[in-house]
């Protein structure tokens, strides 16, 4: 009925997994209950205002205050509290089967993602998390600088990334689809433009994706792309960015080994294509003021096209 209003890839009321589902159910129960209570209180107020004399005398009795203000709330709130705490316990419980382990580090203003194997990083990506449907995921959340908050509402509630501690969030997608997440703790300048994608795939598609991400960067054969790669390295991009299989091994900025496979760039700010890549490289401060990448506006039009074509080929 009103699902058009509450559906979307970043909606807590359009759940794609059991944690978000249980919270959504709680939400609807509370909205319905709250709505009924609100209506009753307003009706009582209306009665007190409009109905004259004797017929409203019952409402001025102190027992109305005791029942309405003490007894009824204590009963309802206690029941609600127990229900809510039981959901919280279920959500934070350790998953039964072995979860997929991912670590996410909050940065100003992007997300550094490591897929772990036996507790150690197997490969790194950025702003882009792919997970298989039906398997629990265990995300270890930390920060490199200030407090951020990891929030993908369609799958789970949020959890903060706080210096000096590691917070663990578990979630599980039940439904194929692309879910969007966004930083939910003000982290300075471009906080509004710090988003990420969570893509829920079938198991075999996820395995294919993971194998692809584990490999080093595709070596280009086309001469235009090779020129792009040369310019990329010559311009010093490798001092901040890593492209595995090349000499670029900087870790200040996002890993670009498979940047061409991502849905968006600049942490969800722009779609991913040669045009936006070019705009970002030459003038990122215009697109996302306060982000940590300096502008590289010295490249000529053709050179920039070569570099962006090379990056686009890194699938």
């Amino acid at each position: 009925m009103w699902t058009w209003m509450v559906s979307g890839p970043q909606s807590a009321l359009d759940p794609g997994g059991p944690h978000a589902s249980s919270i959504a159910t709680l939400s609807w129960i509370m909205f319905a209950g709250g709505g009924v209570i609100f209506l009753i209180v307003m009706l009582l107020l209306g009665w007190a205002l409009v109905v004259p004399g004797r017929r409203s005398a019952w409402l001025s009795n102190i027992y109305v205050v005791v029942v309405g203000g003490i007894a009824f709330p204590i009963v309802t709130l206690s029941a609600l509290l127990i229900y809510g705490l039981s959901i919280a316990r279920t959500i934070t419980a350790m998953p039964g089967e072995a979860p997929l382990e991912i670590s996410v580090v909050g940065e100003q203003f992007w997300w550094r993602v490591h897929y772990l194997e036996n507790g150690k990083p197997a490969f790194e990506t950025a702003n882009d998390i792919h997970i298989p449907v039906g398997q629990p995921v265990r995300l270890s959340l930390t920060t490199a600088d200030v407090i951020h908050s990891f929030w993908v509402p369609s799958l789970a509630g949020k959890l903060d990334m706080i210096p000096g501690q590691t917070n663990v969030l578990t979630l599980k997608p039940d439904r194929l689809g692309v879910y969007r997440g966004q930083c939910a703790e003000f982290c300075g300048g471009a906080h509004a433009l710090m988003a990420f994608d969570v893509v829920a795939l079938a198991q075999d598609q996820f395995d294919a994706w993971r194998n692809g991400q584990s490999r080093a960067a595709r070596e280009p054969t086309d001469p235009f792309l090779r020129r792009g790669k040369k310019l990329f390295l010559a311009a010093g991009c490798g001092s901040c960015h890593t492209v595995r299989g090349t000499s670029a091994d900087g870790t200040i900025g996002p890993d670009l080994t498979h940047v061409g496979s991502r849905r968006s760039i600049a942490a969800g700010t722009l779609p991913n294509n040669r045009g936006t890549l070019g705009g970002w490289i030459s003038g990122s401060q215009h697109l996302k003021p306060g982000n940590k990448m300096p502008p590289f506006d010295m490249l000529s039009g053709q050179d920039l096209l070569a570099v962006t074509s090379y990056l686009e080929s890194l699938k």
Partner: protein
Amino acid sequence: MTDKMQHDPAMPLPNGSPRPEGEFERLKATWEPPRGISFVTVVNNTYVGLFYIGTAFLFFVLAGILAMIMRTQLAAPQGTLVSQETYNQLFTMHGTVMMFLFAVPAVEALGVYLLPNMQAARDLPFPRLSAYAFWAYFFGGLAFFCTIFVGLAPDAGWFIYPPLSSSEYSPGINIDFWLLGIGFIEISAIAGAIEIIVGVLKTRAPGMSLDKMPVYSWAMLVFAGLIVFAFPAIILGTALLELERAFGWPFFIAEKGGSPLLWQHLFWFFGHPEVYIIFLPAAGMVSMIVPTIAQAPLVAYRLVVLAIIATGFISFGVWVHHMFTTGIPQLSLSFFSAASMAVSVPSGIQVFAWIATMASGRVRLTTPALFIIGFLFIFTLGGLTGVMVGMVPFDWQAHDTYFIVAHFHYVLIGGMVFPLFAAFYYWIPQASRTRLSERVGRWVFGLMFAGVNITFFPMHITGLIGMPRRVYTYPAGFGWDALNFVSTLGAFIIAAGVALFIFDLLRRFRAGEGNAGNVWGGGTLEWLPSGNYANRSIPRVTTRYPLWEQPGLADDVAAGRFYLPDNPTGGRETIVTSPLHAEPQYVVQMPGPSWATLLAAFFTAAFFLLLTVKLVTPALACGVIAVAMVLWWLWDTDPGPTHPPVDIGGGIRLPVYATGPVSHAWWAMVVLMLVGGTLFACLLFSYVFLWVTNPSFWPAADALPPIGWPVLAAAFYAASSIAIATASRLLGRGPGRSVAAFNLVLFAAMPLLIAAFTTDLWAHWQTGLRAPKSGYAAAVYMIVGLQGFYTGVLSIMLAYTLARSLTGRLNAVRRSTFDNTMLLWHFGVAQGLAGLAIVTLFPRLVGSG
């Protein structure tokens, strides 16, 4: 209604009439405000209250304009009205100004204006203190607001979480403006709290026992209690963050043994009671307005009072519900969720009591009544969403989204702004010669009610479908566009309502001689005929609604037939009464206007603001001048018994001076010690919290100062207290005492205290420990540093007391100044000993990390 009734012959009146020739003229003359430019030095609560309310309303409008700019920016996705940087300053200032420069000052201002009137006192017990609190707020607040015009406004949100607000990630002075700018607000609030606690408990109309006290007085008492126990947490927090930013003391830096969560605990331990500081006075006002609009007494008075007190207590137990998403353990989550459920119960009691009262009477839909109804609608809705966000899993989705923005605007606008407007329409006839227009008032209400709901209701949805808080723009296509546009429309409707109100206010409000009278038929004492002197005589009350139930009261009061219709000492006086049964105890002589008060406030604000821009020498100079101004202002006070006991009427003879636990000055010092004690407790909490989160930074026993040092410091502390106690005994010997001996012993306490502090400081310094090294070191030096601050303050107080003694203004009877110094001295020594104990013993007991 009752003004024309004949007084009840069964109750004899304290004084006969007609009153002697010239008595009323002398009373009026004493209370006349100063003329010409000196008018700004006025201290009478009526004028200070009006200035205060006006300034708070100005900040409401200014912060509202900031919100209008924000809403216009958000009306469509990818808006370009303001830059990202400007928007971040706008939302920070909107929140900070609304919470610190509007909401708390506004409810405090109404208390300054209304409380004495409601209790038939001629003024608050410390008139110069409330004037100081106002002017410090006025100068400092306006300067703080101007930072937005030069792009230096704080930009890390109104709760400025570190590490974002630490110097590494916020290198400019924007955050310093917040930290030092809020300093004078904290001073204002504490001063107000002292004033109100002493005012409510010690200056009521005779016969107004606790059970007959207006609900508003109860609400203000709890409000002041909340300030006393909650504000110290933020005072400490802002001090710690400023020390971290300025000197690198790493309280909140995880890598150096600090903790960002420490800030959150300190901030929210203040921050949650803060919202009840804002709401409870408004609820108190509603409990005064509803009986009048229904023309019936409040139903369940005792339950309502209990509910207000319960809210106050429980509000200290819920702060972690602002931190549900920080990764704290399940047990903590459960406790704080349960407490958050509990805190809503007392509010429910009050709502039903108000509905019951309206049912028991017959409500006329005047403008105040409309705003009360609007309040009930909006606040109830906000309270219900409050229960929702108190549920942990729901908060994990709603926290830091527009759902929360919707919730708190509903409870704050519904719970405070609507009662405020009801209060304006209700009490302006008491303050002004003409009342506001009822016709325009309906339009103001309609626009504001519609506007608030249109602006904020959609935000519940916007937040749950994914829009986080504090974003200067958002992408199209998530379903947020239309909702944001509707919210922006609503904001303009609210603005229209407020603008219409201001138009009518400028047209109608006329302060000065006379008022429009008891136009609503209220039953409580603020509706007695009044002037600058409050009431011509101070009545004895026998019921909760004296104007309804005590026949002829208004006439008798105005004719001077009740207590103290004159001013026998020739100055400004009111009756001090006992806290429980309000029986008269003494007549207090209160000081009048003085330039010292206003200058002290100006130089206090200047001190904080110059420190912010790092002009240290001018700042220190202003600080010294501010202290000098305070001492000059105090010099007129503590007059001693300048007059033999006076006859206030009804056979009651009262002294005009009191010392010891019965005196208002003693009570004020006790409240100040509670503030200081809470601050110290927060500091001890911080020390232990840093140990819990970073035990590896705690020293081994051999790195600590050898135990001889703290023992020596403790001995010096104890000796200084003994000196003060000895001086007290010497003073009490009366005329036979040796003044020289007293002066000497008194003076001796100062070098002993300074020696204690210096020993304490040197003990740590000589181990090589330096504050910037770690969170542990910073905590130790903060404990020592706080002692240093007290040492300085106490030394100044002692020198002042000595000056009083040397100029013959201190003796066995006239000893309030000495008593206050003595109280704070013993407190400072106790704090010093406690600090030594924890810093010396704790690391030895827990072993090294």
